[in-house]
Structure formats: structure tokens, C-alpha cells
């Protein structure tokens, strides 16, 4: 399969959207384009599995290498392994759901969908590139659409949030850039991931570049204490914007931390693993407790995203195979779950015009479909077995329990305990929204429309597919994690 299609499909759709004059046509084109993306990603998954079954064992499949800047040895080097396929699947699901959820955008419709598609283009490009320069390019491509989406179509103090987001993410990319330049200079003048992974980078380089890259990517995925853009950005963004931000864009950071920072610099990862674990445990706890204090549904989900993304970084910091598989699963699971959560919040907000939990009540009676989805997604968030959240978090805990020493045990136990806190805030928020007496002014609200229903169902399918049958995702991700682990354990042997 030619991976370039994954970049070209959103690009062509985005350009086609720009050409359209009629708003309805714009919507349908965007939907068509995102369905094509979904189909492509499913085909990719299928073809990838077939290839693996047929015994293709190379680390990355469907590789392509097009020279771009010869003088800098920059190539458009594409390829996927299981981890990237999982992330591409996630992206495709969230994109189509996001497009469906934005059906009612009337203000500058064309531009809205154009930016959404541009964002998805950045995400696809990021996940399939094996050249760090190209990877960085796509990472930054996704920043400006976010800024404009929040700033133009957002609500509340949107300009300030948009500015904060853009500047913090750019600061993250500046750190990434410095780290990449460090790798380039000491790694034999190449940005190629595969070539760099075969070189043993000098220890001093790893000591300097690992924190640069990990923190740089970490800002994208709400690494404590650089998470402050998350609540503001998510709560000010339009529904699809929040879905994309939390569902896709935060995962870019996690993927980068794993694929670039940890994989290329295993010794650096060992050295800083404890700090990563401490920071992510703080993020898990801090996020959970901060959520308890929130009354705005979007803020609740945004802070809980900080907490959940902490699990991703915790899994990476644990440096065991199971934990890394868990981290990737958590990325996929959280992406689907949080996108669905934001979608439901968007549906509720559109009807009640408030996001304050205290002002709602009894909505289950008038909007059975929407609120049932809210229940399911809430349970997924607090880790109910049978849904994706449980699978992912459980895997991370199992992976981290492999470390016998006190420090890791305590971190694991603390992280486990946060689930209790999660249960408290989720159940409280859902209970207040769904149960109790129905307010007069909400008595004639309509339930979800066809587009909202289909968006929710698409994401639900993803959540259930992971929750009920986690083995397919596990099998998809494990070989990739195995290779990363091999490099990490090889480095421990060499340092000892």
C-alpha cells in the first residue's frame, strides 16, 4: 500500500473544500473525504496484518523513500509499524466523528472544514513519517489550524486560550527542534529514524537531547507542569476542535515521546525514567483532584485528560514491554473516549446552552440516546471492565508492577488509587446531569440528530472493539513495542 495516499487524501479533500461555494456541498465533501480516510485506514490495517501473516518481519512496512532536501539528507521516508497503524486508525475514527459533529457550523463553514482536514493531514503525516525532519514538519503543521479553530469558532475567552495553546505548543516544538538538531549533529548528519536507531548515540548527547525531546513532545501531551494549555484550550475550542485536540493532537506528543525520545535514546530514557514517572504520577493525581473541583463539563473532561494522558507517560517511563503496549493502548483508548466525551458534551451544550453541571438535571428523560452515551463514556473513563479504558490502564499497571522495587511500586499504587478519584468525579458529574428532576426549560429538548448519532456510534464501535476484544490491538502493537524494548534492554546491558 502506498502510504502517500494517507497524506494526499486529506490534502485533496481540504483543497476541494476550499473550492466549494455551497455550505452543504462543503459538509458532504468533508464527510466523503473523511470516510475515505476511514476506509483507507481500515484497508491499511488489513493489509498490514496480511503482510505480517505472510511473514514480512521488517520493522516498518510499506516503506518509501523520496529524497527531498538532498543537501541536508532529508528524505520523505514513510513507513508504518503496528504502533503507527493503531494511531492512524484512531485518527481516522476521530476525524470522521469530528466532521459529523460539526454539521451545524454555520460561521465560515468552508474555512472550518478546511482547517479540520489540515489538522488531520498533519496527524497522518506525523504518524507515518520515519524522517525526523518530516515528522517535525507535520507536528507543526497541526499547530496553526488548532489556533485558528479555537480563536475563530471557540467560546469563552477563546483568544487568550488560542494564544496560550499556540505559544506553548510552539515552545514545545522549539525544544523538539533543538533536540533533533542535537541528534542530527552527533548522529552522523541524518534525520532518518532507522539510521539513527542503529547508531549508538554518545551518552552526553542522550543526556542533553532526551530531556529536550521528551519535554518538547511532553508539552503536547500535557506533561506536568506544562499541561496548563490543556484545560483552557479544550474548554474554549468548538466541539470538533476539542475532539481533535484531545483525541489526536495530544497523542502526537505521546507518540513522539515513545518513538523519538525513548526509542532513539534508551540510555537517556533510563537516566530520566524516574523523573518521568514522578512527573506523570503527579499529573495523574493532580489532574484527578483538579477535576473534582470543576463544575463545567468541558473542564471536567479536559482535566481528566491531563490525568489520563499521565498514564501514557507513566507507561512509557516504566520501560517495560507490557507498560509500553499499555501506553499505546491508552493513547488509542483515551483518544476515542475523550473524543466521544467531548462530542456528547457538545450535544448537550447545543441544547441546554450551558455546560455547568449544577444547572442540568434529569436529562436522561428527554435525551435518552445522548445521555446513555454519556454513561458509557463515563464508565469507560473510570475504567469499567468491558470498555477500552480498563484494558489500557490495566495493561499499564501490569507492566509497571514488573518492577519489584519500592519506588515503582509506590508510583503504581498511587496511579491505581487515582481511579477511585476518577470514579468520584465522573459519577457525580454524570449523576447530576442525567438523574434527578428535569428542569422546566429543558422539558422539550430533542435527542441526538442523525449526524450526532452516527458520530457517537462510530466512536462507540472503537471503544467496544478494544474493550471487548483487546487482543487484536495487543497483537498489533506488541511487535513494535518489542523492538523498542529490545533496544532499551540492550542499552541496560551495555551500561552495566
Amino acid at each position: 500500500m502506498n502510504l502517500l495516499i494517507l497524506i494526499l487524501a486529506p490534502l485533496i479533500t481540504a483543497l476541494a473544500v476550499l473550492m466549494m461555494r455551497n455550505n452543504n456541498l462543503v459538509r458532504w465533501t468533508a464527510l466523503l473525504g473523511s470516510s475515505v480516510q476511514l476506509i483507507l485506514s481500515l484497508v491499511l490495517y488489513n493489509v498490514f496484518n496480511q503482510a505480517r501473516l505472510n511473514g514480512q518481519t521488517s520493522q516498518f512496512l510499506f516503506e518509501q523513500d523520496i529524497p527531498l532536501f538532498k543537501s541536508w539528507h532529508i528524505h520523505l521516508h514513510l513507513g508504518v509499524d503496528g504502533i503507527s497503524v493503531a494511531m492512524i486508525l484512531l485518527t481516522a475514527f476521530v476525524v470522521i466523528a469530528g466532521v459529523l459533529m460539526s454539521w451545524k457550523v454555520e460561521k465560515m463553514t468552508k474555512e472550518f472544514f478546511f482547517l479540520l482536514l489540515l489538522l488531520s493531514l498533519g496527524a497522518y503525516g506525523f504518524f507515518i513519517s520515519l524522517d525526523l525532519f518530516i515528522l517535525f514538519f507535520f507536528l507543526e503543521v497541526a499547530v496553526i489550524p488548532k489556533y485558528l479553530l479555537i480563536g475563530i469558532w471557540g467560546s469563552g475567552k477563546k483568544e487568550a486560550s488560542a494564544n496560550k495553546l499556540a505559544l506553548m505548543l510552539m515552545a514545545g516544538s522549539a525544544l523538539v527542534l533543538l533536540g533533533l538538531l542535537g541528534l542530527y549533529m552527533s548522529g552522523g548528519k541524518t534525520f532518518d529514524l532507522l539510521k539513527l536507531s542503529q547508531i549508538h548515540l554518545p551518552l552526553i548527547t542522550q543526556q542533553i537531547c532526551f530531556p529536550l525531546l521528551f519535554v518538547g513532545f511532553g508539552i503536547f501531551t500535557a506533561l506536568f507542569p506544562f499541561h496548563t494549555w490543556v484545560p483552557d484550550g479544550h474548554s474554549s475550542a468548538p466541539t470538533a476542535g476539542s475532539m481533535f485536540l484531545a483525541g489526536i493532537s495530544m497523542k502526537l506528543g505521546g507518540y513522539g515521546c515513545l518513538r523519538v525520545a525513548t526509542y532513539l535514546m534508551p540510555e537517556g530514557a533510563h537516566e530520566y525514567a524516574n523523573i518521568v514517572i514522578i512527573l506523570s504520577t503527579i499529573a495523574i493525581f493532580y489532574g484527578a483532584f483538579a477535576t473534582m473541583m470543576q463544575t463545567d463539563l468541558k473542564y471536567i473532561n479536559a482535566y481528566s485528560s491531563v490525568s489520563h494522558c499521565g498514564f501514557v507517560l507513566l507507561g512509557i517511563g516504566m520501560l517495560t514491554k507490557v507498560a509500553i503496549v499499555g501506553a499505546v493502548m491508552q493513547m488509542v483508548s483515551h483518544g476515542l473516549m475523550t473524543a466521544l466525551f467531548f462530542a456528547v458534551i457538545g450535544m448537550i451544550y447545543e441544547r441546554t446552552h450551558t455546560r455547568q453541571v449544577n444547572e442540568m438535571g434529569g436529562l436522561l428523560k428527554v435525551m435518552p440516546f445522548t445521555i446513555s452515551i454519556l454513561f458509557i463514556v463515563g464508565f469507560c473513563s473510570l475504567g469499567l471492565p468491558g470498555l477500552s479504558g480498563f484494558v489500557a490502564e490495566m495493561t499499564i499497571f501490569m507492566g509497571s508492577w514488573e518492577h519489584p522495587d519500592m519506588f515503582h511500586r509506590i508510583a503504581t499504587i498511587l496511579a491505581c488509587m487515582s481511579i477511585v478519584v476518577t470514579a468520584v468525579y465522573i459519577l457525580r458529574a454524570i449523576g447530576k446531569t442525567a438523574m434527578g428532576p428535569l428542569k422546566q426549560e429543558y422539558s422539550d429538548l430533542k435527542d441526538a440528530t442523525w449526524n450526532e448519532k452516527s458520530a457517537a456510534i462510530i466512536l462507540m464501535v472503537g471503544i467496544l472493539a478494544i474493550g471487548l476484544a483487546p487482543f487484536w490491538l495487543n497483537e498489533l502493537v506488541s511487535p513494535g513495542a518489542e523492538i523498542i524494548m529490545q533496544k532499551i534492554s540492550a542499552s541496560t546491558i551495555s551500561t552495566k
Partner: protein
Amino acid sequence: MNDFFILMKPELMIALIIFILLFIKLGSGFLNINLIKVIQILLLINFISGFFMNAEGQLFNDMYSTNELVVLQKNILNLGVLLLSLIFTEWFTKCEHMPEFFILILSALMGMFFLISSGNLLMFYLSLELATIPVAALANFHLDKKVSSEAAMKMILSSAFSSGIFLFGISLFYGATGSLNFVSISGLLDQSPLQLMSFAFMFTGFAFKMSIVPFHLWTADVYQGAPIPVTSFLSVISKGAIAFVFVSTLYKFFQSYSSLWYSMVMVLSIVTMIIGNLFALRQENIKRFLAFSSIAQVGFILVGLSSNSIQGATSVIYFVLIYVFSNLAAFGVAGLISFFTEKENISDYKGFYQNNPFLTWIFALALFSLAGIPPTAGFFGKLFLLSSGAQNGTYLFIGIAAINMIISLYYYLRIIRAMFMDKNENPISKLELQTTTKIGLIICGIGIIVTGLFGQVYDYIQHLVN
């Protein structure tokens, strides 16, 4: 003799156009033609002719030398002037003394061509003057406006001052080495105090022209007071030419001083970036804003220049090419707004998108390119400047540059925010643009996208530098 025509083709073409314009001016009483169209066509022919029949060689006892790289640099400048004439069509049509305007601008351009080609200090000085004095006259082109005269005065005084310093440097060099020829001078460099002093003087003279901090004080006032086509010319073409000269002189003739000018360039670069950025943060007037932002951009050019490698030279030339597209587009839109509505404050741009989506997108693209955000070419340009700078291993320096990129993003986003997000009761109404203006802006927009995504451009420049 044939050599003479082929080697000096760019300059001769410009001289020819100047003559044609002079005749047109003479006959303007009884000629009734659309003058701006004629000029645009002439400039287009000039630009296209730059790609054919190019040769390498020296003339006049090595006073004038040219090669493929020099021709490319001249083509970039030609392109800039062509785009300038396209984008400001409206302004030119209203302009009373259009032929004179172009005669002056082309004379300055010719000066820059000689500057890039010169192999002799005297020639160098003469062409520098030719490139400066017409611009000072141009700055005064709004004859009825006081600020314009003030700008011209500031410009002529500061450039006279810098030329004086420069000339002093040259004379010291002559005293120290007994030669004015670059090649022979570069063989005689021995880091004696006298030579170092004359080098520093020469460098200062250039720093003035390129408005490197602390020699930037004239920039903002002149940019604000001068008519906006002149401002664009100053900030894009004039700066580009000096950047080219910097590359060729520092990298070729003063190579043996590289350890010396490396630290000089580095310090100046840091100061220029920081001061330019910090001042740009607070500007309300768009012309002053762009003035300070272009000072900051010069700081980035110096980052690449400091690397003293083939990559450094390439990335500077590449960046200038991108800078021509992006800055001309930015100045173009700002100039159109100021021409139609006399509004020059950033707060006037609120809600600009409502009535002028095309101009807003072009402006946004240009600003993103200046800020270095993909997929615009500015991203690649800046990244290569930083990567070349990093080759010396001074990561702190690159780190400071990266921080400055973030600061600059903040103020570029201010304009984006005003245009797209801020609400305004009566935003600027739709501007009726002429086709040529649109063509000019579209070329800039395409240039901003294409120059970056197609790596061949960079590789081609590197091939020539080699």
C-alpha cells in the same frame, strides 16, 4: 567585446529600461499609453532574460566579476522588483511621477547589481552609493507629507554617516595592504591591528545598511515615513542585496578572519533578534511593526551567516528568496490597505476577513512564513538557518534563536487574531484590486508554498554555491 555584453547583461538590461523610461518621460506629453503596464512588461522581460545566456568571467581588470551564483542573486532581486511593480499597481497608477520613481528604483537596483559583482573596494563603494542615494530620494516621494521628508533626511544622513565609516575602512585597508582588489587583499590579511580596525569599520558600514542592531535606529522612522513601495524596496530588496554581499565577502575574501567575525556575527545576531522582537511586540503602526520584525529577521539571517559553511551560504540565499516572497506579500497587503483607507494601525485590521478573505489569507500566509510555520517556506528557511548555525556546536546561541522564534510568533499572531477573530462594527470594506495586483500577490503566495516544499530549489542553490 561580446564578453562585455554577455557578462554585463543584467546591468545593461536595467540601463536600457532606464533609457526607455527617460524617453517615455520626454514623450509623455503626447504619448497616451498605460504606462504602468509598459513598465511591468519591461520588468518581466528583464526578469526572464536573466535566465538566458549567462556566463562566468571577469571584466575591467577584475573590477567586475560574475558567475552563475551572482546571476541567481541578481535574478532574485529582479524578481523582487517585478513583484513590487505588480503588487503596488494601484499606488503607481495614482503616482504623479511614475517614470521618475522607476528610474530611481532601477538605478538603485543597478547599484546593487554592481555591488554584488564588484571585485574591487573602490567599485564596491561606488556601487554602494549608487544603491543608496536614489533610495533616499525615493523616501521623499510623498512631496506633500512632512514625515516623508523627515524619513528622507534621516535616511540620507545615516547612510552618509555609514558610507563615511565604510570609506574610512577602505582607506585604512589601502594603507595596510596597498591594494584595493579583493583577491589580493585577501591574500595579504595578517590580523594586524590596522587591518582589524579597517575590517571593523567596513563591517559597521554594512551593518548600517542592513539595520543590524545597534545600527538600526534609522529603520523604523524611515520605514514609517517613506511611501510604502519604497519601504518594501528598502526592507526586501536592499536588505537582500546586502545579505548576498555579506555572504560573498565574508565567506570568500575574509575567510581567514572567520574566527574573528564569527563571534562578531553571533553577538550581533543575538542582539538584533532580541531587540527587533521586543520592539515589534509593542508597535501599533503596521509599518513600524514590519520594520522591527524585519530587523528581527535580519538577526535570523545572521544566525545562518555565522556558520561559515556551504550550508550557511546556501541557507542565507535561500532565506532571502523566501523573504522576498513573504515580506513583499506582507508589505503589499499592508500597503494596499493604507493606500485605500489610510489606515495603518493594527487595531484597524479587526474584522478584515469579513470583506477581504483573499487579502487576509495572503497576509496570513506571509506572516506565517515570516514566523516560520509550516507548510510555508519560511519554516524551511528558518530551520536551515538554525541548522547551519548549529553546525558550530553553539547550542546556546541556537536556543536563543529558537526562543526568539516563539516571541516573534506571538506578535505575528496578534495581526492574525485581529484579522480573523476580533469583532469590529465597521470593518474595512472590500478593496477593489486590479488584476495585476492580484497576480503579484498570488505569485507571492505560490512562492511561499512552493519554495519550501520543493527541495530542489535549495539543492540548486547549494549546487551553485559549491
